[in-house]
């Protein structure tokens, strides 16, 4: 079904109102993505997606329905809407109900770079940059991917909101292997930034060659420098927990904390940044048509804001923060404020510790208490008396988020733009020195 997003979103609202719904929001998203996946320093597959998704938020007598459709035809779309009308009388009123807001004016936040669209047909040139740059180091092979996306979205609501927005994005990451050494790094942008890709490839390759001939270390408590890849991953979890919906659904460390309470080291400030021209998940308006704005989640160690849509705001007696998700509010992009240390200065502040450059498989025993573990992978270095001593084998961080947040001691002055498998929300993060982190490993 070929459609024009803006006109179609308005028609959908009219149609659903005619069918008997009280309120309607229609979000139509057209995406064009190309991804080249690399393994063993050659392309594993090139993937291309052209997708149009139709998303409807419907209420009737304070009952809430959310629909995501890829209909074969207009008739099938009609049928789905009619089915929902039929069941609407049987569902009880949602305690999450709040009226759709009335926005005076919606301002799109377009971040379109034409080069992203142009490179979709010559993505081989980006693959070539990644392969060439990474193999300048003495490595065996690289794996990873580069993805280019062009997204056009149109929102219309029964409260007269109507707007379109367009953005482009580049996301890439590379993992390099050299004997038993490996290194991984990631890069993201709203533009095609070949220098950024090259720098990423060089970082991954350098970590691989520097982490050869690893040795085992004993488990225990260490001071640890977490790279932007690792801290980005952990902060993604923490920012999802800052969604008011997570608090209400019992999956957040902030269930036990009130806004204004101390939750982290005073030097830590984390922001939700929908209005960032450099990170690819920017947006001028949320799914309810509310204007977005940058806001602190944690500022100087204090919990400043939970992320809300109008529904969670109604339950918690506050105002929306422009983070809808019709059901679940979510962060857009994340920016962690930099500190004033160089990486070398951070290392010099460690008596006995580790530098962990990448991690994966973070899992929680208890979201309310924030008990978690994650596996440090790729380049890990032992630091003694302010000097990097040797690369070490994989270990596990097994600690609690509230403890880790409070033990942050230093932040680097440089930020890195990270977006990959384990960092789903684009994040600008510094290197972070955390004191007294619990490190475990297998006993047999």
């Amino acid at each position, binding site marked *: *079904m*070929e459609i024009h997003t803006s006109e179609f979103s308005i028609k959908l609202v009219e149609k659903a109102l005619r069918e008997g719904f009280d309120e309607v929001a229609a979000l139509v998203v057209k995406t064009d993505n190309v*991804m080249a*996946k690399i*393994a063993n320093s*050659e*392309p*594993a*597959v*090139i993937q*291309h*997606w*052209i*997708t*149009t998704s139709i998303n409807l938020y419907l209420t009737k007598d304070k009952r*809430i*329905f*959310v*629909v995501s*459709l*890829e*209909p*074969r035809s207009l008739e099938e779309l009609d049928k789905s809407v009619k*089915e*929902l009308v039929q*069941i609407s009388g049987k*569902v*009880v009123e*949602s*305690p999450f109900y709040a009226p759709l807001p009335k926005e005076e004016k919606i301002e799109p936040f377009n971040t379109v770079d034409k080069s992203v669209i142009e490179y979709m*047909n010559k*993505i*081989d040139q980006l*693959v*070539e940059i990644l392969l060439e740059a990474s193999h300048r180091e003495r490595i065996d092979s690289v794996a990873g*991917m580069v993805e280019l996306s062009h997204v056009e979205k149109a929102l219309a609501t029964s409260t007269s909101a109507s707007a379109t927005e367009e953005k482009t994005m580049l996301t890439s*990451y590379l*993992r390099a*292997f050299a004997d038993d050494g490996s290194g*991984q790094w990631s890069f993201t942008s709203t533009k095609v930034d070949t220098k950024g890709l090259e720098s990423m490839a060089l970082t991954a390759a350098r970590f691989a060659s520097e982490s050869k001939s690893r040795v085992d270390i004993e488990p225990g408590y260490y001071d640890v420098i977490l790279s932007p890849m690792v801290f980005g991953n952990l902060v993604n979890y923490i920012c999802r927990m800052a969604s008011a919906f997570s608090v209400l*659904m*019992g999956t957040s460390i902030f269930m036990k904390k009130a806004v204004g309470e101390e939750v982290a080291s005073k030097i830590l400030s984390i922001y939700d940044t929908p209005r960032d021209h450099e990170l690819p998940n920017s947006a001028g308006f949320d799914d309810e048509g509310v204007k977005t704005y940058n806001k602190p989640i944690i500022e100087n160690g204090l919990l400043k804001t939970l992320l809300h849509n109008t529904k969670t705001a109604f339950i918690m007696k506050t105002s929306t923060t422009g983070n809808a998700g019709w*059901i679940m509010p979510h962060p857009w992009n994340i920016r962690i404020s930099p500190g004033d240390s160089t990486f070398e200065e951070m290392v010099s502040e460690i008596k006995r510790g580790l530098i962990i450059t990448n991690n*994966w*498989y*973070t*899992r*929680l*025993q*208890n979201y*309310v*208490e924030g*008990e978690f*573990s994650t*596996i440090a992978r790729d380049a890990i270095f032992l630091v003694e008396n302010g000097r990097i001593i040797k690369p070490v084998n994989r270990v*596990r961080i097994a600690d609690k988020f509230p403890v880790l947040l409070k033990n942050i001691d230093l932040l680097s002055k440089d930020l890195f733009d990270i977006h990959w*498998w384990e960092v789903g929300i684009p994040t600008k993060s510094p290197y972070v020195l955390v004191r007294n982190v619990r490190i*475990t490993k297998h*006993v*047999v």
Partner: protein
Amino acid sequence: MSEELALFAIDYATKLGAQYSEARVHRIEEFEVISRNGIIVGSAKDISNGVGIRVLVDGALGFSSTNILTKESIAKAVETAYARAKILARFMKKPIVFASSKLGRASYSVEEKKRFQDVSLEEKLGTHSELWRLTSSSIREAHVSILTLTYTESIEEKIVVNSDGAYVRSRIPRILVTYNIVVSHPQKGTIQRFEEHGASGGFEWFERWRLEEKLVEDVKTYEKILLTGAEPPKEEIPVVVGSEIVGIIAHESCGHPSEADRILGREAAQAGKSFIKPSMLGYRIGNEYATVVDDPTIPGSFGFFLYDDEGVPARPKYLYREGVINEFLHNRWTAYVFNVESNGSSRAMNYASEPIIRMSNTYLKAGDHSFEELLEGIKLGVYIKSYMEWNIDDERWSQRYVGLEAYLIENGELTKFVRNPVLELTTKAFYSSIDAVGKELRFYTGFCGKGEPSQGVPVWFGGPDVRVKKIKLGVG
């Protein structure tokens, strides 16, 4: 379904010059109801519907998908998959080739005993409030602060065709219930449990799970763990590992490392490589109790299918057999590299996903011990029945499971609750230290993540309870 569009796609790709082409018309329709503490938060309907196309061009693989189901759009999707594979072919050091294979020309369907449309919406909604009423009133000292529950019913329909002659049509309905329970106590803190129950079939499964009894019993247990749970013993002790944990171990430390694409490095930047190297068939990884099977053909299973998404017939695979690495999970590409036949392990999450090697239902083979016999003779030990936190490194060697419901074993009997015991060990250590295996095989539900973009596919994992020789437990 749009069969003619799929056939058009493979014909068109062949005309363009593709050595191989494949089209999958893939539709998933889902209905979901979410509640919090018995009150419905909202309902959702989700239809995913489109065509996924793969082509092999000059040894490079191209994938393209679209949900605009017109001839023009399909033609464009084929052209882009073809053109982009062609421009990347110049980087190929080893051209991709698919092994020849027996391919299906078949149609199959899973029949629901109780169809979703034959159960009233009132009944489906009523279960949410009833489960909350029962669980929230079942404990006194602690309280159930959260019970979020999601009910999902879905129907997946597919037509897979390819230029080598496959034609497989299928229809699989599935049911899934997931919940999150938080039990709280003002002084003792909280205990949390996520759980999933899933199967292929209809609403009959919901009745079979008897959640109204299970949840009440579970919550009572969680209260006791919160109030009385103590640290596990510090010395080396025998541990009875519950079937739920045995299942996740089989999935993580046998199923994943046995994926041939992972062994060949295709997932190296994402889910990682494997401790199993291409030459390790025949390598001893455990003792005679270590037999792990992946079987998509188990009726009613969440990971059920009879033909994979390359059209290859599915069958049980003995990945570890009596402690020896026996067989890998293959698609047609890895089958060519290893000079074997594909064992039908290629799956795609939806139309927008490339088929890749996946598990289905993975389990450790049952033995002959009753539960009492497993405990017999243990002077001091721990039985870990369930878990919350787990992870494993990206070569699938070092893993950690943190127990949720766990008991002290004293003189062959379960006596007290143990809080957060940690089993942190290597793959070889686990499979080599099993010394007795229970006779009751149980399955558990999950979604397995892999690929880029990440694909979550429905699986079961399972096993019996097993006894592990002495090990030192950690504390979570």
